[in-house]
């Protein structure tokens, strides 16, 4: 089984045209493939050109070279209307839609299908209702957009993209400005849509952990370099993640998939009850220690439960801390 890629690019050059015929090139030679039924996360530091790439794929800006194929057909063959039936977008652009209801907002997604005055037919209403349900925002349909929380607004915009019935959805930082739970909710929703409706979903994000957890595929973008693409786990194991994110004081921890402040070389042995030990280790890392398996000659922390933490000093003495804060104070 080898389905047609939703988006495929060949030797794509992206960037901005400047005055005097010069170009500000961001990336070149991009060979990308977005597959239906998958959530792809685009990661990159600020200024890496994530927005430029998304804008180019959204058709808001012309590529400097190369070609983009949507569902096997070159982008240049798409009329604006056909494009609006193929690619739905969710942007960070500030909207002025506070004064319309969620239902009206989602019904805007039917625009490419409706006639001159945008009159909605029965089927349109049915699709709007389905989209509201699928995005989990149906209970707010009658509310004004201004009454929604940021997370609900994002869901409403996703519902709009669903009402557009596009096989491809591109999202620009959909989880920025959201609190932790809304972030996860949004990602779970996008995954569900990819699996159940076989949509090809591409989103840019800064949320490394969430991307590793939820993304089927990861694109790592850096200015002037070729894109690194792959399944998150493969990229971690191959060391691509580490070399991509490592800076002077920041390292990518391949065991946890987190970015960490460079671990100082002071090893501390840790053992005992799992949960307490895990978080005690977390506190140690933050404070510049490196948790290791207990070994002779170094500080050892034995966690009995969360109120009893025994600290074994290298001298052989043992003191007991009642909490992690106390433990940190003692060592």
């Amino acid at each position, binding site marked *: 089984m080898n389905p047609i890629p939703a988006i495929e690019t060949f030797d794509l050059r992206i960037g901005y045209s400047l005055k005097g015929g010069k170009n500000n090139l961001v990336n070149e030679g991009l060979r990308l493939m977005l597959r239906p039924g998958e959530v792809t996360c685009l990661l990159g530091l600020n200024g890496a050109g994530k927005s430029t790439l998304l804008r180019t794929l*959204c058709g*808001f800006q012309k590529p400097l070279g190369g070609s983009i194929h949507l569902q096997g057909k070159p982008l240049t063959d798409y009329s604006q209307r056909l494009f*609006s039936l193929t690619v739905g*977008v969710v942007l960070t652009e500030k909207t*002025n*839609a506070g004064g319309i*209801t969620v239902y009206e907002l989602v019904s805007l997604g039917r*625009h490419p299908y409706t006639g001159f005055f945008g009159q909605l037919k029965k089927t349109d209403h049915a699709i709007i209702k389905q989209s509201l349900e699928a995005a989990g925002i149906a209970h707010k349909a009658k509310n004004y957009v201004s009454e929604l929380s940021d997370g609900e607004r994002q869901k409403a915009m996703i519902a709009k993209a669903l009402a557009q019935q596009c096989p491809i959805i591109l999202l620009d930082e959909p989880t920025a400005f959201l609190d932790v739970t809304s972030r996860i909710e949004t990602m779970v929703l996008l995954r569900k849509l990819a699996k159940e409706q076989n949509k090809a979903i591409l989103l840019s994000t800064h949320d490394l952990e969430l991307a590793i957890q939820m993304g089927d595929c990861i694109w790592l973008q850096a200015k002037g370099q070729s894109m690194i693409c792959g399944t998150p786990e493969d990229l971690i194991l191959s060391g691509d993640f580490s070399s991509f994110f490592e800076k002077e004081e920041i390292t990518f921890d391949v065991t946890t998939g987190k970015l960490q402040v460079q671990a100082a070389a002071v090893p501390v042995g840790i053992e005992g009850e799992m949960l307490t030990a895990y978080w005690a280790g977390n506190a140690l890392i933050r404070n510049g220690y490196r948790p290791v398996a207990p070994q002779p000659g170094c500080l050892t922390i034995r966690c009995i439960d969360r109120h009893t933490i025994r600290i074994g000093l290298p001298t052989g003495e043992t003191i007991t801390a009642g909490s992690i804060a106390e433990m940190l104070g003692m060592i």
Partner: protein
Amino acid sequence: MNKQFNHIYFWLTGCLIFLFAGSLAYGSVTIPLDAVADILLGNEIGRESWKQIVLHARLPQSVTAVLAGSSLAVSGLLLQTLFKNPLAGPSILGISDGANLGVAAVMLYFGGSLSMVSSLPMSGYLAIVVAAFTGACLILGIIIYFSTKVKSNVMLLIIGIMVGYMASSLISILNYYASSDKVHAFVMWGMGDFSGVSLKQLPFFTTCTLLGLFLAILLIKPLNALLLGEMYAANLGIKVKRTRALILICTGILTATTTAFCGPISFIGLAVPHIARLMLGSSNHKLLLPVTLLTGGCIALLCNILMVLPGGSGILPLNAVTPLIGAPVIIYVIMNRKNIQYFN
């Protein structure tokens, strides 16, 4: 879904009819309503002067007020949506000043005056309308140019105000070199008046404004998409550049025609869309545009009635009345912006 709003249309239409009748009957000479009805129905009532007043002064003036009010209100709404700025309006963005400048050039430099214009054949006031349209479009062009360079709407608004000042200063220069009778005619025109359209010119005025209003109604669908911003609108299949141009042409026609005949009328374009949104609670243009149109007509008729001082002691300039209604609305909107849906 729209049923809940039917009563608003009902009340607004009622208000419009009531105010229209009021402005036919009320004036420096009071004419009883039944006499007005008789005159309109063509019955003889024996008083030639009343017939003259109603048919040749008050009827065209009231029709003008309705159309001018609707035109300005609708162009205000279009600009507010296009610039994503609730404080945009034909007079704030300097578009009225542009039309003003065009009119000033014709009236002061080429020597047309309103009294002359009324007696001239079509080409006379056509020249003024064309000049007003050119001036309005010139300023619109400048604003559009800056709107592509300046991201912040507040900054754009300030640029609009500055451009308006520049147009005003050009008008002052024109005034300085013009003869005093022309200046007087121009100043009188600048105070705003719905009586500037004679029965003979009314068909032309009506055609132009109805054309503009019709064009605005055709723009309802893209206007709604523009609520989401230009990028979303483009993704929904809206041809943004074309829509932008159409909105500006439409605003140009409406503002220029109204300004050429009635003078630069302040605040109606700015305040009426807010009154309409506050009444409706929605910024869906399918509802908002017709309500703005009707409200504009009502407010203009109300101003037309308020202009007439009680006891027949004279008539106030229009621009002395519109800010009294418009400015408090804007202050109210700004003070309550946290609680108003469309601001958030």
